[in-house]
């Protein structure tokens, strides 16, 4: 429950602050008492929290006003403007949005992003869970394995993308390996040209992302698995459930809040994919691996079509928001909360 609540953090904010005001009233009479100590300052411990609150908040609030609140409003505003090479050129109304619907490239890159979501998210969940289950056994060296699996997570994406450019290149190490294995088996095996074929370029991004992020999924799942009470397994064992049945009817339901959390998080992450394809393939060949975010980037910073780029950003936002909303409703069907 704790983990799932990150996706809707507003839900669990109770007030529960009765004791504070009671204490304040309770202690107020104390300043009438004669000096209790030399460092006593009667004004200091009855501070004007009204102002202090704002004072503590001030640096943060200033930044938020400019770089978040103003920016969001401006983004919406810009999406209604025509924007040429020299800057804004008048009001466009809904033109940017209308053009989007007719823009074949947008649908193409949106299709790529959807491809990334439907490949990366399930594969990452399955692989991460498998790794976590394997590691959640009484084994020596568990810590070491965990450290190794998590290692790619901390690497710079750019460095990871560069090394995978090498590994997946036409005459790279993986091609050697595949051809070598093929020769051993007497089969004419060869690696598809991942980076420069319109058919496989997306898969190179998928491979890199799986390598990089699966360790994160594993760590989160491992924590969830360790929270499943052993008694349940023991009871199921007594009832004659086999390993698969125990996994299917105990483990999976009990870790479903974690699955939900990871599912939302990874889908949002996949919607926002940018660096991996940008460094590996520059979105090519022929936009075959370009995600929506790169299309925003290209429009804004290569073609200075800020209006159109902002409209695409809102398009993306609406999709992410809608997705999260729908999932929050759908979760009732498959997410199992112990407390409910």
């Amino acid at each position: 429950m704790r983990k799932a609540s990150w996706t809707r953090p507003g839900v669990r904010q109770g007030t529960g602050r009765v004791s504070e005001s009671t204490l304040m009233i309770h202690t107020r009479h104390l300043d009438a008492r004669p000096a209790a100590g030399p460092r006593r300052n009667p004004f200091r411990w009855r501070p004007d929290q009204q102002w202090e609150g704002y004072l503590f908040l001030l640096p943060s609030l200033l930044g938020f006003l400019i770089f978040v609140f103003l920016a969001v409003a401006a983004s919406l505003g810009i999406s209604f403007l025509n924007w040429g090479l020299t800057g804004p050129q008048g009001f466009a109304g809904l033109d940017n949005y209308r053009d989007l619907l007719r823009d074949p490239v947008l649908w193409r890159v949106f299709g790529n992003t959807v491809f990334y979501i439907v490949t990366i998210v399930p594969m990452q969940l399955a692989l991460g869970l498998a790794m976590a289950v394997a590691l959640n056994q009484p084994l020596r060296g568990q810590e070491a394995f965990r450290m190794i699996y998590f290692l790619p997570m901390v690497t710079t994406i750019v460095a990871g993308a560069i090394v995978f450019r090498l590994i997946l290149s036409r005459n790279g190490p993986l091609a050697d390996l595949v051809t070598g294995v093929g020769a051993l088996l007497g089969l004419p095996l060869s690696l598809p040209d991942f980076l420069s074929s319109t058919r496989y370029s997306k898969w190179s991004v998928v491979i890199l992302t799986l390598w990089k992020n699966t360790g994160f999924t594993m760590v989160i799942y491992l924590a969830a698995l360790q929270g499943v009470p052993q008694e349940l397994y023991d009871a199921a064992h007594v009832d004659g459930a086999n390993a698969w049945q125990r996994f299917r009817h105990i483990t999976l339901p009990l870790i479903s809040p974690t699955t939900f959390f990871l599912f939302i998080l990874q889908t949002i992450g996949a919607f926002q994919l940018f660096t991996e394809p940008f460094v590996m393939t520059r979105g090519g060949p022929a936009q075959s691996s370009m995600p929506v975010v790169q299309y925003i980037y290209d429009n804004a910073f290569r073609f200075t079509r800020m209006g159109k780029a902002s409209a695409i950003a809102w398009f993306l936002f609406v999709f992410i928001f809608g997705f999260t909303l729908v999932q929050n409703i759908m979760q009732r069907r498959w997410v199992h909360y112990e407390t409910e």
Partner: protein
Amino acid sequence: MRPNEGKEVGTVRRSGMSPARQGILYAILILGSGIMLAPFFVMLVVSLFPNEAFMARRFPLHQMTLGNYLEVFRVLPFGRYFINSAVVTVSVTVLQILISSLAAFAFARLRFRGREALFLLYLATLMIPPQVTLIPNFLIIKTLGWYDSYPALIVPALFSALSTFLLRQYYRGIPLEMDEAARMDGASSLRIWGQIIVPLSWPAISALAVFTFQATWNDFLWPLVVTTTDKMRTIPIGLSYFVGQYSTAWHLLMAGSVIALLPVLVIYFLAQKTFVQGITLTGMGGR
């Protein structure tokens, strides 16, 4: 935040696993580790040999050299990238946590009008993908005359709803009686923040700091957008331009990649637990 992490490993029941099953499990785990480590291995080996060695797939030990690392610094202003990354990462980590901590203190421990509404507004911004604010923030930076400068790289990254939210949650867990006792002794709010709340929240703050450090060090899109000269590029940006120019100079690309990884890897090895905590705590590591 997850106090039992790692501790529970020992409580797993040590029974019911045949040696054969254990063997298979180890084989799978080792294979998996091999796949995870292979890219690092490739990176390291290619970076330690001349490019011809890689092309010929022959790596005679006597050809091993650190020359590629020096060469990277000659071909690219890599030292400058490194300094830029270090300045930006350290400033963002320290200042973002400081600013978030002050705000979180106000949200968790002080009472003022509009507190809950403001906090909800902060939370709502967590929903907004960074791509939405990317363009206006770029224009704001240009208007302020900060384009291609340290302030452009640092200032917009200082205001994090996520950090504020996480710290506030942690601060709320500290008993209020501590504040009251300190106030009775004449402590100001600033002192309560600095001498009670912050020291007591050190686990949360350090996890957050490690997370912010690696996220900032690895950040790509924003520095790509607001820098244009080598003087201001951070390591990831410099490396990505390098790919464009020297796409087949694998020995140099790998040496550059190793240098880019090094600082975060060192921290990872030194503070592994904090690191994993930070990334799982913020949950944003998935990007």
